[in-house]
């Protein structure tokens, strides 16, 4: 079920109404759990069984780990959890990819192996709920949290519909304590939650889908483009993917707030970043902190010398790239970011992200970071190296004048510039602070403007959120 669908509007109205009406915290939690499973089943009903299986197994394993005093038994139980979760993820997400690559590898050795076409349908959100669930068993194993969560609480933590299919990746230590105690949204939570939903939907439907996506889709469908169109598409995709995913995250955070739950931030004006480490502190924060805590640090982090640190960074980003999908293009994208982080660390030392000494330097660093990040989206968006190469080549093709859709291209350029300026202006304050500085009339006008723009841009065929596929 898409947040930007009429069905979700009805679903939310019913669930929210019942949540406010029915008495008892246990009943409210049960309602949210059932609603979350209905939300998930709307996409593909049989796949709720995978969600239920993963939930039950991790809850039971974490409980066993918590109860056990034997380090060996605890380790074995953790390994079972890792194998089960990553095995499910591997089968559904990477099964075909592994078989195809095995076939190619064997062909190089002159062994002819015909990989079966598994034709697996990827369970939506599996990457997100697997990581959320793993955070519980790992944290219990590390004795950072207790493993005594009641099953209902744990099941609700994993499946709570605002974060279920595309994050933010909420950790057990963040959400379970909130689920434990009765909650009802305060006036401010409800008000701000609805504001975030409106702003998030505006960002998704108006900016990502209406301004950016058509230019990007048209360009990637026709790769005989000149520089003006290619740059428009590349900058446009930067805007599209940010507005799509940040918009979704705002909706998720806002919806959770409406029920009295607080989710962590997922984006903090990433295109205003001063360098790549700063970028990853601002982009998909819940994934980057997850990778940092459960991958980069266990790999050694910065504790084993300079070169080992670079290796850990690159390996973490390669895996982070692969997390996005079963394609070497995502691995390439992750690897490039790993290299940027390593080079930056080498050049600037461990204190990367410190503001530059002058405004000009600061501005140049921000623009440089944005441009490199933008160019690195090319392999992320392209399905193969050939497409990526042609798009990259188009950036330098000054022979072709813009063929079609000049207005849309110019709007795309202007919107990207506006986005960059907005991010630069706001990178050191939160959205809440910015919004609070407006007068009540302006606040109402901004939100009303978002609603009117959504209405004006409605009527096309709805696009799914990009991050659903991950």
């Amino acid at each position, binding site marked *: 079920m898409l947040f930007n669908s009429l069905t979700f509007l009805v679903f939310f109205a019913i669930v929210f109404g019942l949540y406010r009406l029915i008495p008892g915290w246990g009943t409210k939690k049960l309602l949210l759990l059932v609603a979350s499973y209905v939300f998930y089943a709307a996409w593909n009903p049989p796949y709720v069984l995978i969600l239920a299986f993963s939930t039950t197994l991790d809850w039971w394993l974490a409980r066993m780990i918590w109860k056990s005093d034997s380090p060996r038994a605890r380790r074995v139980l953790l390994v079972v959890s890792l194998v089960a979760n990553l095995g499910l993820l591997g089968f559904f997400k990477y099964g075909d990819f592994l078989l195809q690559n095995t076939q190619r590898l064997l062909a190089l050795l002159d062994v002819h192996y015909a990989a079966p076409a598994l034709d697996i349908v990827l369970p939506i959100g599996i990457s997100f709920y697997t990581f959320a669930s793993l955070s519980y068993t790992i944290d219990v194993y590390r004795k950072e949290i207790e493993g005594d969560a009641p099953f209902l609480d744990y099941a609700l933590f994993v499946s709570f519909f605002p974060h279920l299919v595309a994050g933010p990746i909420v950790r057990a230590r963040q959400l379970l304590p909130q689920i434990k105690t009765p909650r009802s949204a305060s*006036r*401010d939570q409800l008000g*701000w939650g609805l504001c975030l939903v409106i702003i998030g939907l505006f960002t998704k439907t108006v900016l990502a889908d209406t301004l950016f996506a058509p230019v990007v889709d048209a360009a990637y*469908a026709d790769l005989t483009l000149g520089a003006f169109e290619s740059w428009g598409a590349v900058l446009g995709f930067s805007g599209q993917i940010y507005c799509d995913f940040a918009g979704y995250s705002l909706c998720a955070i806002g919806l959770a707030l409406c029920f009295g739950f607080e989710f962590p931030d997922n984006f903090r004006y990433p295109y205003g970043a001063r360098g790549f480490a700063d970028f990853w502190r601002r982009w998909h924060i819940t994934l980057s*902190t997850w990778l940092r805590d459960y991958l980069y640090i266990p790999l050694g982090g910065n504790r084993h010398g300079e070169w080992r640190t670079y290796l850990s960074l690159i390996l973490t980003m390669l895996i982070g790239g692969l997390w996005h999908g079963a394609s070497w293009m995502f691995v390439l994208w992750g690897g490039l970011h790993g290299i940027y982080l390593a080079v930056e660390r080498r050049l600037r030392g461990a204190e990367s992200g410190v503001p530059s000494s002058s405004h000009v330097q600061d501005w140049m660093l921000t623009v440089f970071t944005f441009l490199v990040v933008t160019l690195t989206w090319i392999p992320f968006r392209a399905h193969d190296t050939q497409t990526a190469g042609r798009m990259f080549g188009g950036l330098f093709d000054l022979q072709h004048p813009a063929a079609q859709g000049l207005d849309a291209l110019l709007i795309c350029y202007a919107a990207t510039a506006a986005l960059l300026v907005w991010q630069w202006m706001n990178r050191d304050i939160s959205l809440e602070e910015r919004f609070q500085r407006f007068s009540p009339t302006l606040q109402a006008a901004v*939100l009303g403007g978002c609603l009117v723009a959504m*209405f004006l*841009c409605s*009527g096309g*065929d709805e696009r799914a959120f990009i991050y659903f596929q991950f």
Partner: protein
Amino acid sequence: MSVPSSTSSSNLRLPKLRWNEVLPGAVALLLMAVSVMEAGLALRGIRPNPTESVRAWVQQRSRADAMGNKALALVGSSRILLDTDLQALREETGMQPVQLGIEGNSFTPVLHGLAMDPAFHGSVLVDLDFPTLVTPPRYDAAADYERYYQAHRDDRFTYARIEDQLTDLVRGSLRSYADGSRPSTALRDRLLHQPDPAQYLKVLPDRSILADYSKTPMPYLYYFRALRDLDGSADLPPGKSYRQIGDLIESGIAGLQPQDDSPLLVQLPALRTDVAAIRAKGGQVYFVVFPRSGYVREMDDRRFPRPLFWDRFAAEVPAPALNFEDVPTLAALYCPDGSHLDYRQRGVFTHALLQAMHLGAMR
């Protein structure tokens, strides 16, 4: 249990605002904007009508499969949507016509989808349009429509159906969505644009479209379409008389060169395969070049000369094919905007077409 500060959200950052003013104010603004638009559109005589969407197309696509060998799938772009009379087709052929036209898109993805679909056993009437065949639109929605159908044809769960019904309910009730328009398009083209183009199109539940050109601003629409076809202009040049615009168009037409025919040659083998696949399932494919008039016809004649395109197509694709120019009754039909027939001509066109192709009582 502590929450790391790097990932926490805390109550402290929640804005404390005058929510009872801000949120109702925002909603009031939306309601006001929608009401003003609806009132403005009502004053211009715009009526809400069923929406044209991928959902409506998928419903018809599904019918094409369900009708077995009685199905007559109509494939192409706006001409097949506006020019064919489904009732006449039904009565005169005994078949069940299914409207699968998609405005502004090429016919090839849908024809290919029908050919490869084991569930489709019917026949196909194709609106053969060389411009879209040789130079497909940059974004071909037809390919997406067909992919969507193939991916969701077996969906039995009701989420998609609920969403369809809610969407149809909302869009079918508001003038801002009339004729499949987006509210932004309705605002630009119906409320702010001069001359005010009246609602001359009516979308029927079967997806066919009726065009009543008596309601259109003529000759504005005729020149606008011609100029758009000629050089992609978004509007008529300001400050010029229709005569001057006519001269401009005529000099443009005089300079037109034949299009490269190699894209057609590339497509012919695939078209032959699709035709053979449909015939192997018991169906037939009929290709028809639909009527054009005036400048649009002249432009097509220049860009797609008959010997290079039509003659070659008819010779190399083993399927019944008809060019409107070869049938006096069809050639005499007049397209008010150069490209499409008025709805009053649909019956005449359909009857003449069936007679010319000897398609009476097909089953």
